[in-house]
């Protein structure tokens, strides 16, 4: 109970979170702690509640008090944009770019609205920051392209770049690899690993198993709104219930 304890404080604590839609229980008493800097994989069959959990964390869905605690603070009453400013960023399962803008303008929205000093920083400062992030993401040559002209993998990268432009502590990647080819999956995976190396905590939702296995330090498997397994990737994969949920025995 000394200094190691404070470093072990969770960045995100989900405490007994239950989310119902009418009579349907999408999440049933889910509790999990995510440590700072952790690479966390979230898996589960379709409809198991993965995206619902992400929506509860990012604020798209409201939940009961103190079920979502971020950085030591209860954030369940905060709207999504405040959570983003506190350091939670996400991508979307189906990309949701700002379609009337160019790639760099998409990132500038994030820079404009999340830097506390946005009245002091000039537009040029924001543009420089955005360019740096695009370079990091390998999208610098598309900076002034319209998002409507991007390929699927570029769109995925743009969403991650936009999320990064909010300077998050926690990045949630919601199936950023869905629909990508094998080499593109590796590209996005390398990007996420690179970001994790910069001490950003990442929750990765993914169906592509080899990617989740390579990425995650810890994996949680949801099924019908309940945690059925959590732990080391190899342990979770070996779990009989996980195999049952995925393969239907």
């Amino acid at each position: 109970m000394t200094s190691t304890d404070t470093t072990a404080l969770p960045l995100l604590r989900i405490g007994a979170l239950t989310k119902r839609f009418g009579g349907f229980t999408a999440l049933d008493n889910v509790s999990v702690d995510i440590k700072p800097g952790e690479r966390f994989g979230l898996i589960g069959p379709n409809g198991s509640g993965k995206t619902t959990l992400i929506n509860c964390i990012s604020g798209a869905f409201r939940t009961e008090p103190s079920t979502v605690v971020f950085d030591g603070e209860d954030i369940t009453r905060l709207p999504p944009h405040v959570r983003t400013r506190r350091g939670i960023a996400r991508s979307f399962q189906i990309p949701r770019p700002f379609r009337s803008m160019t790639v760099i303008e998409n990132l500038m929205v994030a820079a404009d609205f999340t830097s506390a000093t946005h009245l002091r920083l000039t537009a040029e400062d924001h543009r420089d920051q955005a360019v740096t992030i695009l370079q990091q993401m390998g999208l610098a040559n598309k900076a002034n392209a319209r998002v409507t002209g991007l390929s699927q993998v570029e769109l995925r990268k743009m969403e991650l770049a936009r999320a990064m432009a909010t300077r998050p502590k926690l990045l949630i990647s919601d199936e950023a690899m869905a629909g990508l080819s094998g080499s593109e999956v590796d590209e996005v995976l390398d990007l996420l690993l690179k970001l994790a190396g910069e001490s950003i905590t990442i929750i990765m939702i993914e169906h592509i198993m080899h990617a989740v296995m390579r990425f995650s330090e810890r994996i949680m498997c949801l099924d019908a709104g309940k945690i059925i397994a959590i732990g080391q990737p190899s342990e979770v994969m070996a779990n009989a219930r996980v195999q049952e949920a995925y393969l239907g025995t």
Partner: protein
Amino acid sequence: MKRNAIAFWGASVLFLAAILLSAELVANEYWFFAGYVILQFIVLSVAWTILGGYAGYVNFGTSAFFGVGVYTAVFLVSAVGAPLPVQIAIAAVVGAILGFAVGLLTLRMQGIFFSIATIAITIIIETAVTNWRELGGAAGIQIQRPPVTAPFHTYVQMLVFVQAVLVVISVAIARYMQNSWIGRGLQALRDDELAAECTGVPTLRLKLIACVISGALMCAAGAPAAMYLQYADPASAFNLNYSVSVLAMALIGGTAHWIGPVIGAILLGVTQQVLTVTISSEVNVLVLGVMLVLFVVGAPEGIIGLFKRRRPEGKA
């Protein structure tokens, strides 16, 4: 950017000077009557575009705000004999409050539901005014113009100048918003509201700001109409034609840039005036409808969209 600002303010000063000068040079009073209406529609369309274009919330309640502006002026004149600048300023404040209230009530609705709610609000306010006996009720109310002051020769000339000042103010505000972080945030939430929230954009607050500013400008544009007509009645002050015309002007001009509603209002406003004089005032509603259909099909981004398409965009 700097050079743009100088050009903009230079053009504004020239525009106002030209209006002032016209009071000396133009003898035919008709031009002022017609010009006033067109200027009024420019203010209304620019104000509409702030919410309907930048934020993408299609407002059918222009006539509600316009009518409230008219009746605020009527009330101030009949109750305390307030001068014109006071009428306009207080109408703007009332419009801002009304915009805030309407925004709080309706902005959680999206798409067509928001639009229907704004029509409902128009009907509610019109009904209230119709039954307000002190403001003339359904029969309407007549008001007296005060004597005109130099350098204007007639009261309508002065109203034209006042409306021209409102044009400059509304365009300056729309232009500022478009180029600032407010404009970028509104554009983001128009494209995708959830994605905007998750990128840090306070969507509800920005929509309320747009609603307040749009409402204030619409009411301010309506205030001088009481003195222009020297008469106000609910059926014409809250006429749905204002909502439809303004919407058509903004959409035909294009809503992505402040110049769009200005072009649209001038084009349609002039057309309406010509048709009213040459054929009849009923035909212009028909022409408005036909033009709106043509533009929705042929140029969904309005006139400015046509120009933008010409520019090389696919080079990236």
